[in-house]
């Protein structure tokens, strides 16, 4: 099938529709709106990990200059949503509900003052005393307390790998990783009437935030206006409505003034989720010619004591390769930590770290090239459902990536390639993620000034959703992309899904396609069927100021006949200093089978960015708790390392760029998750190839190599 959207020049493609606003500082993020009478909030956190507050002295803070209120569990306005009869046993943290402490850093007070400085100072005056209970924050010491989540999966025979002629059985540990988008989570909350509210909020989904806030305060959904036209990154951290958002809205009610609450970078480590520390064990076995006999994959991740967070860590072992026997188990352990939340490639990125490492170990045990081993176990139909794939071009992706990185230079024998005193190694890792399409509604309007306006509620957290929408709209209508104006990130606009789960280009893009197609049909009728693109002339001739359609768009039933996934493969070349153990990623090539690429420039950036996040996962990212106190010790950018310029080479992104025939009219599949899934094991596999040292506990810091 051909894509119904053509792309002119993949090298060029349109630049971001919001580029000018972003490079001039004119793009406004949630904390940056000028709201009359705004006050400033600062959170104060618990200094113990488990127990109760026995006394909370807020007098000094309240008397500090410019302080309007100190909100605690003792005086917080009632949040009706916390008291409905249908409260589940476990669920999101109910902020300022009572004196119970579940984790270190849990908010115990919100100081509201006339200025940020005054709120910050007054926050230091809040004095709390606690009755401390024994806490548990160490997953490794609590693995025996794992509670099974979901059904154990068995295909064929359980633990079949054990009988295979060649087998690998190893444990892999992924530390806690924190999303850390550059924009701090922030909200400005303003009550416009007793039951009417406007918020400017960092969120990936204005519609879900609207519903959650309305539910919490028991006001009509349509009375909550949520604005998020620009979101400074999120990677999953703004998928939910967090306690601090509820607190800011409650505070605005109490002080009867708008409240602006910007989390500190330290708050970002305990307030908006993280990728959970996860222990995994993989057993994998093959015949001596490299045909998989069985995979056993067990995983245990951490969650909070007040809420269960689960993710599809072991799913990838059920899906990725054609193994006749697979069994998986997944557990979580409740600890005195805040609840995790999906982080880019949730579950799959964690699972792929173990699976793709184990496969690499198996390739050396078999003495078969890692790509060849994957080709011998390539799944031609979905091993889970038996359905055919809607599209899969993973073999092409292997080839493209291998050619670009120079895979033929790789030595099968580790530690044998040396250049300028550095050990050189090559590694690869593959990834996959479900390709989805849900429902979205788009308004398309062509105005007498020739501008095509596209509107929908979806947010653009950075991938270039608006740019992809403009590319599709321009193509369908036959207008220059510069003539397209995009409005999004506003709860009053037609509904579309939350930005996340690699589904937005597929879903919203299809809705843009459908709306523009309908609009074009309307113009065609005006034109007596002639199908002219001179819309301005047609409007003028018919004395119309504009023509507008609002179109509901969803996928067809035939999608149910196919298994739809996006696929990726990542190739890494590392240089390792044998004396210091310092690893330099020298080359990084990622190839995505993400269907037809509708916005080549932004798509390439998204893939590169995902690879860079994966390099961080492999080499530096690790949130550390001092278990004596149950407290994070590196909750800042000085101590929690993310990749910086000097860590990153000219990362490359390549696309197979073949349309998926079924998912949507563009033939596009998502790529936000697959950009990161499989990168970390590619780095670790390259390090093994360079040094002969197999690291099974991330991140691979130099101390582990010397």
């Amino acid at each position, binding site marked *: 099938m051909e894509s119904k959207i053509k792309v002119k020049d993949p090298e060029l493609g349109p630049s971001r529709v919001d580029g000018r606003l972003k490079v001039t500082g004119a793009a406004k993020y949630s904390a940056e709106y000028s709201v009359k009478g705004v006050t400033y909030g600062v959170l104060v956190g618990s200094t113990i990990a488990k127990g109760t507050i026995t006394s909370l002295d807020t007098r000094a803070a309240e008397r500090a200059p410019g302080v309007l209120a100190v909100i605690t569990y003792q005086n917080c306005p009632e949040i009706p949503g916390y008291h409905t009869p249908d409260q589940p046993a476990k669920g999101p943290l109910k902020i300022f509900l009572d004196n119970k402490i579940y984790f270190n850093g849990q908010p115990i007070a919100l100081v509201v003052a006339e*200025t940020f400085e005054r709120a910050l100072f007054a926050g230091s005056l809040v004095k709390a005393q606690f009755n401390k209970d024994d806490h548990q924050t160490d997953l490794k010491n609590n693995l025996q307390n794992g509670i099974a989540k979901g059904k154990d999966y068995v295909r064929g025979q359980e633990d079949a790998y054990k009988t295979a002629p060649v087998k690998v059985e190893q444990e892999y540990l992924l530390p806690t990783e924190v999303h850390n988008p550059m924009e701090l989570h922030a909200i400005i909350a303003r009550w416009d009437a007793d039951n009417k509210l406007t918020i400017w909020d960092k969120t990936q989904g204005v519609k879900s935030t609207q519903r959650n806030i309305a539910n919490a305060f028991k006001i009509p959904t349509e009375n909550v206006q949520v604005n998020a036209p620009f979101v400074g990154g999120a990677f999953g951290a703004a998928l939910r409505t967090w306690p601090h958002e509820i607190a800011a809205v409650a505070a605005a009610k109490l002080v009867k003034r708008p409240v602006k609450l910007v989390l500190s970078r330290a708050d970002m480590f305990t307030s908006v989720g993280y990728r959970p520390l996860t222990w995994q064990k993989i057993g994998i076995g093959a015949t001596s010619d490299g045909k998989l006999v069985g995979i056993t994959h067990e995983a245990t991740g951490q969650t909070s004591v007040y809420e269960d967070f689960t993710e599809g860590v072991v799913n990838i072992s059920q899906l990725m390769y054609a193994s006749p026997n697979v069994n998986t188990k997944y557990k979580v352990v409740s600890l005195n930590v805040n609840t995790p939340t999906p982080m880019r490639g949730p579950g799959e990125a964690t699972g792929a770290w173990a699976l793709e490492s184990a496969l690499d170990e198996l390739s050396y045990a078999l003495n078969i090239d890692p790509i060849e081993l994957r080709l011998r176990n390539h799944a031609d139909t979905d091993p889970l459902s038996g359905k055919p794939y809607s599209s899969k071009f993973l073999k092409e992706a292997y080839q493209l990536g291998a050619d670009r990185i120079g895979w033929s230079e790789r030595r099968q024998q580790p530690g044998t390639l040396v250049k300028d005193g550095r050990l050189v190694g090559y590694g690869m890792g593959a990834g996959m993620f479900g390709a989805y399409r849900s429902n979205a509604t788009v308004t398309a309007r062509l105005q007498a000034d020739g501008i095509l306006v596209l509107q929908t509620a979806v947010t653009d957290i950075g991938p270039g959703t608006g740019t992809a929408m403009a590319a599709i709209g321009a193509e369908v209508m036959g207008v220059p992309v510069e003539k397209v104006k995009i409005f999004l990130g506003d709860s009053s606009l037609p509904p579309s899904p939350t930005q996340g789960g690699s589904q937005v280009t597929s879903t919203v893009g299809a809705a843009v396609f459908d709306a523009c197609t309908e609009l074009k049909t309307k113009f065609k009728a005006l034109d007596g069927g002639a199908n002219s693109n001179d819309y301005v002339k047609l409007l003028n001739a018919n004395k119309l100021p504009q023509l507008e359609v609002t179109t509901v768009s969803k996928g067809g039933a035939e999608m149910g006949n196919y298994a739809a996934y996006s696929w990726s493969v990542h190739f890494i070349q590392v240089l390792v200093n044998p004396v210091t153990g310092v690893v330099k990623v020298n080359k990084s090539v990622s190839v995505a089978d993400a269907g037809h690429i509708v916005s080549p420039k932004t798509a390439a950036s998204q893939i*590169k960015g995902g690879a860079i996040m994966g390099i961080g996962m492999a080499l530096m990212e690790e949130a550390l708790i001092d278990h004596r106190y149950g407290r994070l010790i590196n909750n800042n950018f000085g101590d929690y390392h993310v990749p910086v310029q000097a860590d990153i080479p000219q990362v490359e992104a390549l696309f197979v760029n073949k349309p998926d025939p079924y998912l949507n009219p563009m033939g596009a599949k998502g790529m936000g998750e697959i950009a990161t899934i499989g990168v970390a094991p590619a780095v670790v596999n390259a390090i093994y190839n360079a040094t002969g040292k197999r690291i099974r506990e991330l991140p691979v810091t130099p101390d582990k190599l010397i």
Partner: protein
Amino acid sequence: MKSKNPPEEPAHEDNFLESSRRDFLKHSGLLTAIAFTPSPLVKAAKSGLDEKIADLYEKVPVSLEVNGVKHQLSIEPRVTLLDLLREQLELTGTKKGCDHGQCGACTVHVDGHRVNSCLTLGVLVSGKKITTIEGLAKGDQLHPMQEAFIKHDGFQCGYCTPGQIMSAVACIREGHANSEHEIREYMSGNICRCGAYPNIVNAIQEVKEGGQPV
């Protein structure tokens, strides 16, 4: 290092803080001139007059030039240049990413040099010329670095972008953009979590090689 004046004991601190504002006002000569008896003093506090008086004592006059516009301001000495720009001058193009000088999102130019505005107190830049991202373009004409960032897609979410661009311009001016390697080293104080690093390097190289004045 030992402090010359050891701080008061925390126990005293509480009392001090509870009473400091009022005591300060009571002992203030200006207030005595305004309020002759303790009774109006309480009224003055309620009407916000104490805030106004405190402003006189607790704030410091500052004159600075931001993007060619002169400002005469009265600010608390603890206000950072970053918060001054964002919260008082409504120049929100300069971003807060960490408030600790660890991410570079707040980078501005002070007398032509790049600084982290979150680590710079507003009172310390009195008399200096500040350029923020809002002051980089000449009217509608973008600075070459801004153009290059758009062309090379040197950003995704856009939040670190103003800091990256201000740093990038300074990087060239400093003579630290002579190779990819050098650019990477001298741009490592600006974190981009979306991972636009390679594109940023390409943008800076193009501007450097283009030879336009930056």
